[in-house]
């Protein structure tokens, strides 16, 4: 007994060394709360700067973990640090930093009576949860991290709640999210009852193999439902448009990027346990996920055509992108993991820039409706020019980073098709190509209205404080980056070296 206690203490001390980014985020969380309390009127600025520096420090520690060669199992199999997780954590921190910049330029958040310091603390706690999502190797850790992110997200969506729409978005998100996490918890409890272990390892799989197929499949499906809520794939997507429209734009941008990145991280960790390494599949994940991905791409892209509100349109388009990234998940090879990292990175840049520009244009013109953009193309040349570049990248137009991302994912799926020759995979790839064409229609509605349609009256532009222009430059810079990475993908890809295990 004595022996085992000192052994586990040693193991924890050993594990803490690998947990520096998370420890930094935890410390930052506390520091931000305290500075927010004691800096009075300047709290917004000070906590903003503190959080940004803190995220940079966490990023430095995370970058230091890039040297991990193979997956390290820590804290008695609680978490597993793989190279893939490190890349995901870097993307998550990037999302966090862009979100912090975004809050500085969003008028609605800047004018919020209660200040922003609490929002920064919540974001940091949410990022902490997301980091753990990407590293989870245990059902308890899976539940805790997902729940941590969920609670943080509810608070972020409901943070301002100054009008009916925002509070409506918050309550819909909280209720639907709570139901999904309860379903997931029940699934986990069934898995635990069947296998007697919480660690996603060989013993878990071996025990699951001897349980009746129906029960085991049901339990796995229930857990997937909880993760699917975070990913917003199709049967569980209908909250997305409402919440994305209702929440304030920076929060929407954060949830649509960081939320997805973390969810893909957790789903990879979960699927790894069931991967062919163990020589069997209880539910055929490949078929199940293929069908889900096909439906997700169709519904996401076709529903986006009918949207007039740009935030709703981007919400549906993000559902479509989820379907596309799931293609990389289905291929489940080293190449596809690399493609997924590239796609998620580019997707983060694209979506953040798109939402920033939508927000800037809303502040300038007072509208989020695409049909009311008439004539503004010439009035706001830089904003609309950057937006068009971002939209081209979202479509996957050649010479933008979005194109490279789609090609990488596509080729990894093609590789699997050449290997297995499954019809479902062929349909999946065909749908990926087809829905990309469909996406042309709704993305091009924006330049169509902004440049080509004649306005009924002379468009009116509001003058804005200086920091709003700062947002324009950031998003224009992101748009430029998308072109640069499109022309020289090696700039990113050269850094990414990983295996999926």
């Amino acid at each position, binding site marked *: 007994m004595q022996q085992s206690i000192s052994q586990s203490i040693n193991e924890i001390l050993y594990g803490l060394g690998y947990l520096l980014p998370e420890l930094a985020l935890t410390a930052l969380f506390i520091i931000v709360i305290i500075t927010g309390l004691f800096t009075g009127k300047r709290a917004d600025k000070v906590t903003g700067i503190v959080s940004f520096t803190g995220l940079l420090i966490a990023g430095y520690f995370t970058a230091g973990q890039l040297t991990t060669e193979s997956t390290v199992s820590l804290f008695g199999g609680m978490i597993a640090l793989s190279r893939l997780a490190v890349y995901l954590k870097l993307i998550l921190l990037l999302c966090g930093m862009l979100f912090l910049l975004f809050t500085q330029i969003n008028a609605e958040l800047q004018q919020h009576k209660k200040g922003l310091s609490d929002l920064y603390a919540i974001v940091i706690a949410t990022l902490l949860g997301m980091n753990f999502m990407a590293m989870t190797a245990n059902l308890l850790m899976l539940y805790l991290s997902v729940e941590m992110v*969920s609670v943080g997200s509810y608070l972020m969506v409901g943070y301002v709640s100054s009008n*009916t729409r925002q509070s*409506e978005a918050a*309550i*819909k998100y*909280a209720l639907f999210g*709570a139901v999904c996490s309860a379903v997931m918890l*029940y699934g986990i409890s069934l898995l*635990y009852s069947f296998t007697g272990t919480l660690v996603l390892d060989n013993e878990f799989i071996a025990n699951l193999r001897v349980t009746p197929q129906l029960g085991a499949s049901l339990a796995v499906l229930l857990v997937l439902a909880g993760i699917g809520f975070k990913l917003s794939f199709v049967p569980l997507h209908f909250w997305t448009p409402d919440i994305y*429209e209702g929440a304030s734009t920076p929060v929407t941008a954060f949830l649509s990027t960081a939320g997805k990145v973390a969810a893909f991280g957790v789903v990879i960790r979960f699927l790894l346990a069931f991967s062919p390494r163990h020589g069997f599949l209880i539910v055929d994940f490949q078929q199940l996920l293929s069908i889900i991905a096909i439906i997700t791409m169709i519904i996401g892209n076709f529903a986006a055509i009918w949207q007039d509100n740009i935030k709703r349109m981007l919400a549906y388009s993000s559902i479509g992108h989820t379907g596309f990234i799931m293609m990389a998940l289905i291929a489940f090879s080293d190449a596809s993991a690399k493609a997924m990292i590239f796609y998620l990175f580019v997707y983060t840049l694209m979506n953040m820039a798109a939402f920033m520009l939508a927000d800037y244009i809303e502040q300038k013109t007072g509208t989020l409706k695409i049909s009311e953009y008439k004539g503004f193309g010439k009035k706001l040349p830089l904003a609309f020019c950057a937006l068009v570049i971002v939209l081209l990248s979202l479509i996957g137009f050649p010479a933008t980073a979005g194109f490279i991302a789609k090609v990488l994912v596509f080729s990894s799926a093609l590789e699997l098709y050449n290997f297995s020759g499954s019809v479902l995979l062929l349909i999946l790839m065909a749908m990926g190509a087809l829905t990309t064409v469909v996406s042309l229609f709704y993305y091009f509605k924006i330049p169509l209205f902004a440049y080509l349609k004649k306005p009924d009256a002379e468009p009116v532009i509001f003058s804005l404080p200086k920091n709003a222009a700062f947002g324009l430059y950031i998003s224009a810079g992101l748009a430029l980056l998308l072109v640069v990475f499109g022309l020289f993908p090696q700039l990113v890809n050269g850094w990414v070296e990983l295996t999926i295990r």
Partner: protein
Amino acid sequence: MIPFTHFMLVGAILFCIGLYAVLTKRNAIQILIGIEFMINAAIINFVAAGQYDKDRMGGQLFALFAIVMAAAAVAVALAIILKVYQHYKTIDPDKIDQLRN
């Protein structure tokens, strides 16, 4: 000794009651109660299955964590419901539908 399947049966029934409440109730707080039922169903499973996992105590531990997380989620949800009530003067989820229009 009560067989393990009985615990699981009670858990399953509780889960279905909770899901039924979530799908049919017209009051956000009653929906939260339904969610609480579903979580408790899972907790029963955990504690019951924990008897076969005496050295690691995974089930019991998980039950404790689940109780705490459920309380946190419910606290946040109640705060949001309060905010919604201030704006809408109702907490019937069917009547809270201004988005999408």
